[in-house]
């Protein structure tokens, strides 16, 4: 996934799965809405090249973490909705654990630098 902000693309790619799983744990959603929510929550600093989201969604679906269904938008256009499955919630919990660990290590090191 390509990012146009200053966040490195490797980090953007690594964070895509936990972000998608976390967003979908709040309820089903679709590609465009997922991208808009990520953009809004990151204050525009985390921007994906939109088309790259779909291969990630498809991969997660193939791995049994998500399921999808075709529905309709308010204007009657076809729209594919994604929702999280039980295994997806387990994977999300693991992601949270790992990212929290990385965050705590970084925060600890940062605090030590300023002591």
């Amino acid at each position, binding site marked *: 996934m390509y990012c146009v902000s200053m966040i490195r693309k490797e980090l953007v790619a690594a964070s895509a799965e936990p972000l998608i799983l976390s967003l979908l744990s709040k309820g089903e959603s679709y590609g465009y809405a997922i991208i808009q929510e990520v953009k809004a929550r990151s204050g525009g600093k985390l921007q994906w090249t939109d*088309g*790259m989201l779909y*291969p990630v969604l498809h991969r997660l679906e193939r791995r049994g973490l998500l399921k999808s269904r075709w529905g309709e938008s308010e204007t009657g256009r076809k729209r594919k909705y994604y929702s999280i499955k039980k295994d997806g919630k387990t994977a999300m919990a693991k992601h949270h654990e790992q990212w929290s660990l990385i965050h705590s290590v970084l925060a600890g090191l940062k605090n030590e630098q300023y002591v």
Partner: protein
Amino acid sequence: MFNLEQSIAEWRKQMLAAGIKSPVPLEELEGHLREEIEAQLQSGMTEGDAFEMAVKQIGKAEKLRAEFGGTNLLDWLSEKSKKTPKKKYGYKSYLKAGAILLFVIGIANFVVVDVFHVHLKYFWEGAYGGCIYSSIFGLIKCAYKAKHSKTPA
């Protein structure tokens, strides 16, 4: 005069040409493109600018194709077959194979006739003989083709 539907149809063609053939991703991508265009139109952009912006935001067809590559098994297989072309053997390989085959036939003949004293009257005329003749003929044919082929072995 800018025609939005025509431009979207052109964009679809580009995606198809780039290899995004599976209908599901293309339908999804087009839906996304239209949502982005609508959002840009609501913010006051012209149709042409909104379309350009949405196309840019979705990404280039080649990059998308690379990302989607792993999702379409048939495409993945065709990619693989392009990357690993059939190995070509030189004529010497066929000659070696022929020599080995003749050696094996000689040993088999010796074992059957001289060790077990079994005389196969129609050995060379039977089905077994036919297989051996056709194998030798096939190897000679392959060796000839390999030697006179334009592509180097």
